[in-house]
């Protein structure tokens, strides 16, 4: 798992590559939360997330909730297949409210 954070013009662009699972959850959390202090907007690119378990999903929830508390916009973009599958299973696509491309095979 690697996490890449880029901040410019008050927007943090985060790209998580690899597994978003319990094994890295603490690490990812530690990287993500400080982003709110750095910027006004957060965008997380999920295109390279190869695997997501409950711990990884919880992190998205955490970020979403912190974002709404702080009143800062959060965008999840380019969901990978693994991410979409989780959001769909738990019926959380609308909760996050980001536009997603749902592949035909999943429905």
């Amino acid at each position, binding site marked *: 798992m690697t996490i890449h954070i880029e901040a410019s013009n008050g927007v943090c662009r985060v790209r998580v590559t690899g597994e978003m699972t319990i094994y890295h959850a603490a690490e990812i959390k530690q990287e993500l939360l400080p982003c709110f202090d750095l910027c006004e907007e957060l965008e997380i690119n999920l295109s390279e997330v190869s695997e997501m*378990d*409950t711990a990884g*999903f919880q992190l998205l929830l955490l970020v979403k909730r912190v974002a709404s508390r702080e009143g800062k916009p959060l965008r999840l973009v380019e969901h990978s297949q693994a991410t979409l599958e989780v959001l769909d*299973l738990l*019926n959380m696509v609308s*909760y996050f409210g980001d536009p997603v491309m749902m592949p035909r095979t999943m429905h």
Partner: protein
Amino acid sequence: MELDQALQTFIMESRELLEAMEESLLGLETFPDDRDAINAIFRAAHTIKGSGGMFGLDGIVSFTHVVENVLDRVRNGDVDVTGDLIALLLSCRDYIGLLVELIAVDSHAQPDSETESVGKVLLEQLKSYQKVNKLQPLARTTEKSQSRTSVLPHSSTVQSDNWHISLRFGLDVLRNGMDPMAFIRYLDNMGKIVHIVTLPDAMPLSLEMDAESCYLGFEIDFQGDGVDKEAIESVFEFVQEDCSIRILPPHSHIEEYTQLINDLPEDNIYLGELLVKCGSLTKKELEEALSVQETLRQEFSVEDAPKLGHILVEQGVIQPELVDAALGKQKVAKEHKAQESKLIRVQADKLDQLINLVGEMVIAGAATSLLALRTDDAALHESTSTLSRLVEEIRDSALQLRMVQIGETFSRFNRVVRDVSREIGKDIGLDVRGAETELDKSVVEKIGDPLTHLVRNSMDHGIEKAEIRLQRGKPAKGTVFLNAYHESGSIVVEVGDDGGGLNRSRILAKALEKGLVTANQVLTDKEVFGLIFEAGFSTAEAVTNLSGRGVGMDVVKRNIEALRGTVEIDSKEGVGTTVKIRLPLTLAIIEGFLMKVGSASYVVPLDLVMECIELNESERREMRGSNYINLRGAVLPFIRLRDQFRIRDKASRIENIVVVQYAGQRAGLVVDELVGEFQTVIKPLGKLFGNLKGISGSTILGSGEVALILDVPALVHRAIGMESQIVN
């Protein structure tokens, strides 16, 4: 004076009780339903509070009182035993221990503000277990809710054709290696999840959120043709310890939904709306449910609710193997108690005095034997030999008094390993071997810190992350092991792990960079690994760049050397690392081997002597100028004590080699005369001679002469060093 002594007893008792409390708490982690352990913990807190009150130790009493209250609720089944509760209780135990130790130093001591604030935080955390749990659900209350509804007037059932499943996962479910999502996925395969609502509300925002805890709950509307309740339950079978599950069949009574709403931790109105959203209830049904709830509240007083819950747990399903485990525990506890009553508490200094006296007696006995030998009185000879045999026995049993099993020290590490593995988020177990190995109490006391350091190091840097372990074909759960055994007059304590091992080339590169070795030096693996004990290695950089290790290892080495011990390290990359600590068995009296060079006498510990070889004239000529002989085909380096200690006496006509062994290495000591076994009472040399190399102490012979005790490890090292220098 009287009171002071009583207070001492209180402190000692408290320490024991706290230790028992810790043991039981750790046991609860494995068997959360162990009634005996819960009772033992309660009793410990209760006793400490009670006796603390006798001495007017208000700080201890008031804090322990709160802990006791929570424990009482646990005992009555009002509060569930969870990982969090155990962790909190362990912290409370530590805090009480801290207060007791403060009293031990000064009976009027008041905790400083920092300590007090720790106590306050703990009390705050305990509060949540004092009240909130009234609303907290207990697992498997479904049956109860059914029995309760039967009392109520018959009312309508809900329209929904679907099952309703409520899940609230426990905090530890992820850490226990289970993924809630996997269960939901499985459920989806079994039938169809019509609707699912994910509840994120239990998750704390910001830093307190532990990324490895699970905070989620789910409300599921589930459609399954031909699926019965048992089948649904079986989906969650593996997780039932860590999850509160409620299953309502299709067309359940509205009261059952009412009960469900009541039992769940979230706000009632909010829950109701969730159920509607889920499709399990219609709006109208919800209104009905909430009104039934009102009636219920009037019929059953609020205090009634949690009690019903706990009766259930008592009658509830407890697996037979848990009962067996509890019985096993009980037996162990009983044996422990029986052993306790056989012990007498003795002041350590009284014991030290006894050992000193025995030491003097050994010397005086040797003098008497010597005098007796000069006479021809056979009866006297016999009497002194009986006497010296008895003295030997007394010496042995006196020393035995100071010997304690290392197991007690080892068992403390259960807690260390548990705490550290949580801290760093790795699943690591502790494997203890050789716990019955005995060593001197004074050594045991001093070895705790170095061991803690090594164990932490192993866990932190040695053991890899779970996925790397799996890649390498090792079980995901790492193991740290502690082992102890006796080996030729020393005790060996091993701290090891099945982790990644040390990276030889990186250490070497680092050592070159630090200037600890030169590029053309040829080093064995052991020598390379030994470099991490050098002071220069303890830099932060070493932790990240190397495979870890080396943080404060020089301190460990110094501590061990202060005990006249040595430390070495074995490692295989990818397989694991073992640190071996070798310590002298005792610090007071040893069985020695006496020998002479000229008129000077020397003693080596008998356990280290392998054999003695007489050198004849031709051999002596042969080995002149060299520092080794051929001993049955193997090279044996040796040291001439005559040269080593610059003895100017005339060289004797015969010479002998005493072959000694230490840490698997052999060397010879060339002496004039072999005298034989000798009871050696070790007398320290005093500060003036503190830096003397090759001598570790002195002793007094029966004739009153002084003999020096040789420091065999240093001499062996020197002999081998000299030899390899010449070879190079």
